[in-house]
């Protein structure tokens, strides 16, 4: 299985779990919302991967703050983003190696801590 396929499947699983938790999102934002949610998660993974490659958690935390500001302007809450990140933590277990998983956990924990503060 190639890397792109793995990423797509991971993202599909994350988006599925988000909509399971918040079924009202489908009514509120429709198909366009679903597409945007998927796009957002592509960006989350890109930023997590980049922060991992550059070994700097702060890159992801800064991204989380920036994105949270934008999502709130579009009617999302800080909870939506934090739950999205926490779902990533659950889902990636089956897909990525231990080193990356440890880093993702650290980056997401820090981002969620600051976003919920």
């Amino acid at each position, binding site marked *: 299985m190639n890397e792109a396929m793995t990423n797509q499947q991971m993202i599909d699983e994350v988006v599925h779990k988000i909509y399971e938790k918040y079924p009202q999102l489908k009514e509120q934002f429709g198909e366009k919302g679903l597409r945007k949610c998927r796009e957002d998660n592509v960006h989350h993974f*890109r930023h997590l991967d980049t922060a991992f490659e550059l070994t700097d958690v702060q890159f992801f935390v800064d991204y989380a703050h920036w994105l949270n500001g934008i999502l709130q302007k579009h009617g999302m809450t800080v909870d939506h983003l934090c739950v999205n990140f926490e779902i990533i933590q659950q889902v990636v277990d089956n897909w990525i190696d231990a080193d990356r998983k440890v880093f993702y956990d650290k980056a997401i924990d820090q981002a969620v801590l600051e976003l919920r503060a």
Partner: protein
Amino acid sequence: MKEDIQKFTHYLLEGDEVSCESFINEMPDKEDVIKVFHFLTTAMQHIGELWENNEITVADEHLATATCDYVLSQYKYNHITRKKGKSNGLKAMFFCLENEQHYLGTKIVSSIFEYYGWETRLFGANLPLEYAESQAKEWKPQLIGISVAILYHLPKLKGYLDALSRIPNAPIMMVGGRLSGLYDLRQYSTEETIILKSIQDVQRWIMEHRTEGNKYGENNKHSSSLFSNQ
């Protein structure tokens, strides 16, 4: 300044090239290239904030970028290209990392170098390393400027800098763009890379190394012959 930015931003968002040009032509400092470029940069940063605040759409932002690009080209032609004096004999090329689309900064920086007598080649957005490398080997610029705005393009930067600084004429490597203002990019660069955070930094660097002759060359093995012909 704030009112001016708002007015000009409105013209950009309307795609109103005529009003944008009239506005620039009526600026008291219109001959001051650095001030005008700073003004355009501030206006585009404001457009970015409007998008972040959900006050404009991606389409609005793209129209504003295209309009700003036109204004920049016109201004450069009238105030730099047409009035160009004697070349200083130095060459510089500018581009964005692969997949990086935010090219207006490279266009501005390239224009500033041209204003100060450099011969420039602007490759704009998304230049894969292999093409940057072959162009640099063939054209032999003394300086190569790279722009990076999006975080997930940053891991590629070191590879570009390593490869391009190894080419035979050993050009000075310069990095700028949105990320250079947000993070210390030194750890993702080579030791000799010049990192510039603003238009004013670019101007300062050119001025310092113009007036101080080959001082830079004495301190940097990668540019030993750069200013020796001045």
